[in-house]
């Protein structure tokens, strides 16, 4: 993950108009990110996945083939989604004055490099047993109650 965050930082150094960058899976979960303090990682991920879903539906409606990029531009910011693989995408929030040509070139390059890292990780990832991660102690789950976590 650090390697991916380093690539995101490199991208931001090359195109400083990029305000936020995240690698999101198609479930909307953020795998790695470089975000400004006021952006919530969870919301950024959920919105990215929603846009991706919408884009997929629209493309299949017009028989447009596989989705590779989504671009939404406002007068202040634009959102650019670039597909990394079947399951992941690179999601960016950018100020609208960014030079589009440079942006696209750098973003595609970065998406490709991240894709290579992720597929390498998938290959080497060993099977994870969560009960082991929890130290074998699953008793806490039995006693879990959100009623104990309410605001006084």
């Amino acid at each position: 993950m650090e390697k991916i965050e380093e690539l995101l930082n490199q991208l931001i150094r090359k195109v400083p108009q990029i305000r936020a960058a995240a690698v999101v899976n198609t479930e909307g979960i953020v795998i790695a990110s470089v975000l400004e303090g006021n952006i919530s990682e969870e919301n950024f991920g959920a919105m990215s996945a929603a846009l991706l879903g919408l884009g997929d539906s629209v493309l299949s409606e017009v028989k447009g083939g596989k989705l590779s990029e989504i671009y939404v531009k406002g007068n202040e910011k634009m959102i650019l989604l670039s597909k990394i693989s079947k399951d992941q995408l690179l999601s960016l929030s950018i100020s609208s004055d960014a030079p589009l040509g440079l942006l696209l070139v750098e973003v595609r390059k970065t998406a490709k490099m991240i894709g290579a890292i992720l597929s390498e990780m998938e290959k080497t990832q060993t099977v994870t047993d969560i009960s082991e991660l929890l130290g074998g102690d699953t008793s806490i789950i039995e006693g879990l109650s959100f009623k104990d976590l309410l605001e006084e």
Partner: protein
Amino acid sequence: MFIDTKKKEINVKIVYYGPALSGKTTNLKVIYAKLNPKFRGDLVTVDTKGERTLYFDFLPIEITLAGGFKVKFHVYTVPGQVFYKASRKLVLKGADGIVFVADSSPERRESNIQIMQELIETLEEQGISLNSIPLVIQYNKRDIPNAMSIDIMNADINHLNNPYFEAIASQEKGVFETLDAIVKLVIKKLTTKTPV
């Protein structure tokens, strides 16, 4: 689901599914309002001016288990209108657990059955059988005078004898019982099955 072993973090997705106006958004609003802000983020509701959900609601919840392991729950609701089947499919993708919120009004009987059928079919399309995914059923709106009996509702939509809860979500009743149940089922599945 996404596990980050370095950060000691498990991300899971829970989807509140069900017919239009059964009380899915109300469940999330109650959770948001009552839960200590330490454990939850902002409730994002993408909707139209009326009370019907156009697209989805989203609420992140985060708890820390023994050994410092963090579990982040990404909780979604789907829009219930027949028209939004495509949205429902999208939101359902990758769900680790499902809460089916059924409406106890007799007029909504057919909608409950129809949307449950759709859920089963959508899961099948995604290669998931109903008995393999954690599922909890909530019978909501128990306060209405002519509410259907639990027996009838179980016979209609609870064919696999999944855990079920009676609720009056608008009065906060049953909301946390339901949430506890789905969260426990999901975590239990994570700890007993070895995901690849």
